[in-house]
């Protein structure tokens, strides 16, 4: 099996069985990555232990299959890692997609922004702020100007 086929097989597996999909009641941080131009969004929940390791992570999305697959791959990679390591993964995610089609960049950015927003929400809650969630808007848009 070539690398391309292997990648496709993994992608299809995430489409068939998305990892960590759903919501969480008792979370350390909840973030939303939102496309301001339509109803698409990613909600991401983080449960951190006392050493800020990601004990559990969940996400859910209103968006296309590509968003669900990106969320599945991202959460699968960072679950069990430290927050700092997860930040690096999020950065890498965005860098790798710099040359990807516009809609794929928007999907990845929604997932990364939801993760960043969950961290900010966690940080604000640790400072005593009564904040149920934090929202960040994406800058990419999967709708090309001609369609607007």
């Amino acid at each position: 099996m070539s690398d391309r086929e292997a990648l496709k097989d993994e992608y299809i597996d995430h489409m068939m069985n998305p990892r960590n999909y759903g919501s969480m009641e008792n979370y350390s941080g909840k973030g939303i990555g939102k496309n301001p131009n339509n109803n698409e969004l990613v909600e991401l929940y983080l449960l951190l232990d006392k050493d800020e390791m990601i004990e559990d992570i969940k996400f859910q999305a209103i968006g296309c299959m590509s968003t669900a697959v990106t969320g599945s791959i991202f959460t699968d990679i960072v679950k069990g890692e430290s927050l700092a390591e997860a930040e690096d993964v999020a950065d890498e995610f965005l860098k790798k997609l710099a040359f990807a089609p516009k809609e794929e960049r928007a999907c990845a950015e929604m997932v990364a922004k939801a993760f960043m927003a969950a961290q900010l929400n966690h940080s604000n809650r640790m400072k005593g702020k009564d904040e149920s969630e934090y929202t960040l808007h994406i800058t990419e848009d999967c709708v090309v100007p001609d369609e607007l």
Partner: protein
Amino acid sequence: MNSNLFQKKHELWLKILFGSFSVKDEALYDTLYDFAMIEYRHLVWLGDELVIEKSAFDYDKNSIDFQAKDNFELFTLIIEALNEIQSIYHDSVMFARFSSDEAYFIEKLTFLLSDSTNNAPITAFDKSRKMEGYALDQTQTDALTLFLFEESYKEYELILVYTYSNFYNDSKLLASIFGDLIHESHFHLKSFARMMSKMGLLSVPRTIMKQVYQFDDLEQFLRDGIKEEEAAKEECLKLAAEVNHEELSAFFNFINFQENYHIALMEKALVYLRENR
């Protein structure tokens, strides 16, 4: 009653529905599909009762355990789920109906289990991405794969959204329009999921977020829905061209034309809502 029962019923419906899609034998598939559609009707009646009781409920679900290695393992899984749900029913005419239906389902499945000719391997999840009798190249296969995943999710979402809208809707006209759209989506979901099963790609769509169906503005929902139907039409046309296969292209053109009427129905609902503000 509680909302947990609604969730269990939703999960049972999906288990039998997607279990039916996974079975190759057409007669066995038909039997299971009929059972699943009866379970869907149970779900609707249960939702109506919960609305009367003013109890909150939603479409959250756990993962659906329906992937079996062969028909007999699937029948056994379904029998177990049917037996399990009996313990949370209450005393009422509606629950007596649920129990009676499900007692028959168990009896029928037990009967099927007694004949080994009803058993066969299930290949609906093997990711082969090949359809018997169709020679599709890589581009055609990729286009079809992505389309089937996107659209099966969309059809499941539409069934749930229109069903939820009807729980809280007092208009006969809207109930009729949403009822038609639900029927259409059941047909589309069945068609797409059977193809996914043949390609080894069958899976239950992900959970629908509450914001999608617990909305305040039905007019906005319909306006967005019309845009989505128009996009779905474009996808069907694009796919029909990309797949470039006489039989499949004819099917996607047929689906595309059905979307026109969905738009007409939704526009009719919009006019009604504007006139009855």
